[in-house]
């Protein structure tokens, strides 16, 4: 039974009364929109015989639904703007039975799939692996479904894990602790020295030698503070940078070995932010935040202890404003957070605007829209200025108010302490020391909230990093896997079903057998599943159901590196890494001999253009290869694949982005490359697949037609229509020219 949400007792009781004795409950899920459209709970229960909708409203007001599965022919989760609707098909039309907000879209897609399976008499099976909207521990809404709850981050566990990275540097960590605590201790001494100076030298106007010693003490304290600060800073920044660099390196290693499913789910932006921003904010916190926290915590304890020892009654009185200072600091930080966020948001918008305007400057000029762009920039610029002024004014006002509040403690100290000096129960030196300690006490108190919030954010970032580090990577090093070398290239799909989103299969029960050395042309509309089929051969993704076999072995039983070592891929958008052409061709086989590199380049029709460049094979290709033309990049990427000498080759729209002449050169290269290798070639231009031994036409995720070009044309089916359509388009283009 699939329980997305537990039925509350009253609904469970209601269901207990309604449930027929012979029916089996298969699924329970809760919606967040009531029958009348208001927010509130409603439940759907799927049994092997019925679809039942329940609510806690009075009978007659609850819009209760009970439908026999036998009357339903289909079901769907119909997306709306800002919500969704579960609909079932009866008598040829879909009828709504339940609504939900956009937050529950994934869940109700699964519910619809379950109803669909029941209606079509298929085996019941839905996934419960749906990201939760709320934290299961604290119940609060999650700002990111794929991340841990920031409120429930176990701060101590994260801190301990960060500290575990210090293990190799124990000695330096000890130096840092001594330097930090020593600094706090030394900073406590100047008020004690000034006390003695006032009471034992200045008031009695005697004992010059003592004055010299005390001033010497002050200088020593000052020097020690500076020295310890420098030592702590040097060691601290080195340690923190080292720890974070190690963490970042570990994170990157994990990211490289993560599955494409993980990369698709997280997105490039999130991962970039994880490697750069999250680790960097932790670095800053460790360099600046941790020393501040340690020094000031130690100072607080020290100052309070000394003050209590000096005069516990006066300490109690002057501590009166402390709760207000702490509360004021908290309020200030909370409000400032909103203002900082607004400034940052406005800056982000300005950056976005600037980036867009500069990237699109040709378009702006072509449409003579420079003035409009300037106006758009001015608007964003003004917004940044307004937000910054607001933030600065609020900061200045609040900071001054907080300082005044802090000052009240000092006023009390002067008033109460002054009267004690007058009546002789306190010396002037003691009072002066008291006031100095007071400033040392209030200063850190104001900012502990800010530091705490800073720490929380840094720890949440660290938790996100650890979350990824702990995610299982692709299985590269499994000892019991098969090392099949060389691959003969026999590929078989047995009832393979796969979807990037498990609820929406892209491939549905695909059966296909490919002989070693055979060239298969994959044909079909965009989204038909051609590239997905090829991706499964590389095991970039794993089938949800069914099996992919290579040379008769389940692909999951073959060692991953062994498999990918023997598959060559040429993509529509060739990707080269910054470096030389030589390095890029050697990417798959770094130890390849130069004659082999040249032979690969010749086979790819790339040698001539390479040697024609001033730096030949040593030409730097630039970031992502952007100093080469698309055709040149494509030929380098083919050379890269040739050098690998793969048993299986995947050509995914390899000639789609190039002109006819370049296409011809690439086609020549490809025809040399495919000899003796099992090849999956994907192309929209059907003429490029004329060399294929068989063509596989995919339609809506299933194999619709298989055969040679002539066989499929004679069949007058989907392939025939596609060919006709392309002929018509070609004729039209010829007329246009």
């Amino acid at each position: 039974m699939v329980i997305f949400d537990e039925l509350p007792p009253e609904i469970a009781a209601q269901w207990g009364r309604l449930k027929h004795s012979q029916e089996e409950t298969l699924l329970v899920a809760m919606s967040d929109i009531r029958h009348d459209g208001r927010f509130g709970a409603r439940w759907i229960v799927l049994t092997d015989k019925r679809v039942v909708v329940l609510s806690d409203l009075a009978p007659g007001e609850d819009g209760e639904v009970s439908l026999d599965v036998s009357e339903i022919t289909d079901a769907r989760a119909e997306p709306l703007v800002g919500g969704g609707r579960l609909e079932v098909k009866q008598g040829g039309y879909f009828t709504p039975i339940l609504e939900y907000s956009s937050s529950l879209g994934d869940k109700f897609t699964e519910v619809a799939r379950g109803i669909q399976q029941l209606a079509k008499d298929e085996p019941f099976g839905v996934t419960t692996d749906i990201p939760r909207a709320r934290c299961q521990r604290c119940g609060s809404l999650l700002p990111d479904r794929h991340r841990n709850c920031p409120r429930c981050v176990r701060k101590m566990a994260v801190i301990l894990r960060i500290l575990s990275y210090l293990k190799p540097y124990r000695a330096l960590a000890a130096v840092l602790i001594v330097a930090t605590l020593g600094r706090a201790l030394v900073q406590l001494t100047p008020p004690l020295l000034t006390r003695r100076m006032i009471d034992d030298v200045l008031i009695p106007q005697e004992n010059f030698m003592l004055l010299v010693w005390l001033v010497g003490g002050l200088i020593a304290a000052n020097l020690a503070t500076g020295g310890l600060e420098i030592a702590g800073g040097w060691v601290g920044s080195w340690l923190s940078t080292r720890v974070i660099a190690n963490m970042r390196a570990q994170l990157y290693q994990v990211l490289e070995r993560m599955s494409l499913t993980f990369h698709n789910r997280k997105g490039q932006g999130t991962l970039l932010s994880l490697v750069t921003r999250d680790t960097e904010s932790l670095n800053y916190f460790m360099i600046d935040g941790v020393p501040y926290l340690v020094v000031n915590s130690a100072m607080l304890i020290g100052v309070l202890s000394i003050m209590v020892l000096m005069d516990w009654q006066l300490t109690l009185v002057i501590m009166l404003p402390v709760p207000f200072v702490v509360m004021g600091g908290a309020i200030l930080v909370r409000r400032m957070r909103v203002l900082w966020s607004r400034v940052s948001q406005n800056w982000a918008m300005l950056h976005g605007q600037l980036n867009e305007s500069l990237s699109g400057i040709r378009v702006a000029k072509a449409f003579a829209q420079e003035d409009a762009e300037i106006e758009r920039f001015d608007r964003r610029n003004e917004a940044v200025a307004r937000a910054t002024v607001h933030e600065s004014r609020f900061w200045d006002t609040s900071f001054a108010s907080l300082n005044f509040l802090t000052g009240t403690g000092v006023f009390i100290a002067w008033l109460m302490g002054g009267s004690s000096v007058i009546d002789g129960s306190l010396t002037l030196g003691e009072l002066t020391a008291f006031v100095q300690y007071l400033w040392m006490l209030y200063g850190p108190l104001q900012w502990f909230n800010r530091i705490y919030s800073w720490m929380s954010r840094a720890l949440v970032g660290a938790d996100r990093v650890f979350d990824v580090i702990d995610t299982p990577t692709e299985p590269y090093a499994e000892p019991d896997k098969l090392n099949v070398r060389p691959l003969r290239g026999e590929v078989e799909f047995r009832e393979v079903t796969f979807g990037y989103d498990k609820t929406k299969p892209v491939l549905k029960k695909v059966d296909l057998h490919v002989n070693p050395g055979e060239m298969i042309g994959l044909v079909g509309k965009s989204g038909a599943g051609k590239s997905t089929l090829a991706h499964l051969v590389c095991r970039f993704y794993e089938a949800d159901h069914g099996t992919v076999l290579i040379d008769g072995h389940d692909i999951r039983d073959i060692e991953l590196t062994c498999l990918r070592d023997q598959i060559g891929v040429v993509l529509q958008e060739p990707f080269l890494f910054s470096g030389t052409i030589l390095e890029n061709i050697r990417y798959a086989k770094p130890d390849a001999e130069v004659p082999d590199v040249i032979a690969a380049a010749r086979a790819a029709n790339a040698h001539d253009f390479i040697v024609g460049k001033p730096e030949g094979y040593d030409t730097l290709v630039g970031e992502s290869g952007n100093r080469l033309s698309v055709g040149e990049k494509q030929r380098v990427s083919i050379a890269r694949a040739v050098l690998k000498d793969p048993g299986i080759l995947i050509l995914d729209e390899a000639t789609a982005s190039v002109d006819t002449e370049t296409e011809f050169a690439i086609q020549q290269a490809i025809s040399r490359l495919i000899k003796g290798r099992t090849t999956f070639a994907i192309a929209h231009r059907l003429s490029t697949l004329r060399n294929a031994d068989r063509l596989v036409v995919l339609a809506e995720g299933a194999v619709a037609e298989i055969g040679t070009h002539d066989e499929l044309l004679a069949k007058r089916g989907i392939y025939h229509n596609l060919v006709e359509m392309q002929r018509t388009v070609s004729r039209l283009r010829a007329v246009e020219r």
Partner: protein
Amino acid sequence: MATDVALDEEELVLIGDIGPGTTDAATISLSRGSSGQMRVEIDGDRCLLEGKAVWAFPLTLKNYVSILDTKNKEFCLIEDPEALDEESRQILYASLESYYRVYRIRTIRAYRNDWRTSFWIVETDHGLREFVMRWELDSVLQPSEHEVLIIDIDGNRFHIPDFRELDESSKRVFDLIL
């Protein structure tokens, strides 16, 4: 000096000739099918058995309504829905209402900002709702000066027609965020 160039008008396809492709509302008739689906007929000639109505400009111009078939292909575009007959108009607005789930915020009960994310508890015309909004370029839209549309991380939409009409504490949130 700019020189006027004479163009052969016959070769030009003018935008005015193409037009917006709207269908005269007077020729459109909407009705309900046996399962409640919206049926659309144009001039008693073309008929769509199951359609849905969507705004072409949901934030700015509420007079353009597009009627789509079940595969989201446009069947017709209506420029002036008010020109439909009474029954058709009611069916059209009911279809629009059933497609857009936009909740009107009456008051903001709680607002908490945590860097790029904000947490809201709001009282809407459909009851109390808690949501999370991430500060992105398209998460707070201002169709007009005092009108705000907030889109939460899941795509739920919350509308404030005029934030000046909110209570003082709710208004303060907008002073902070806009």
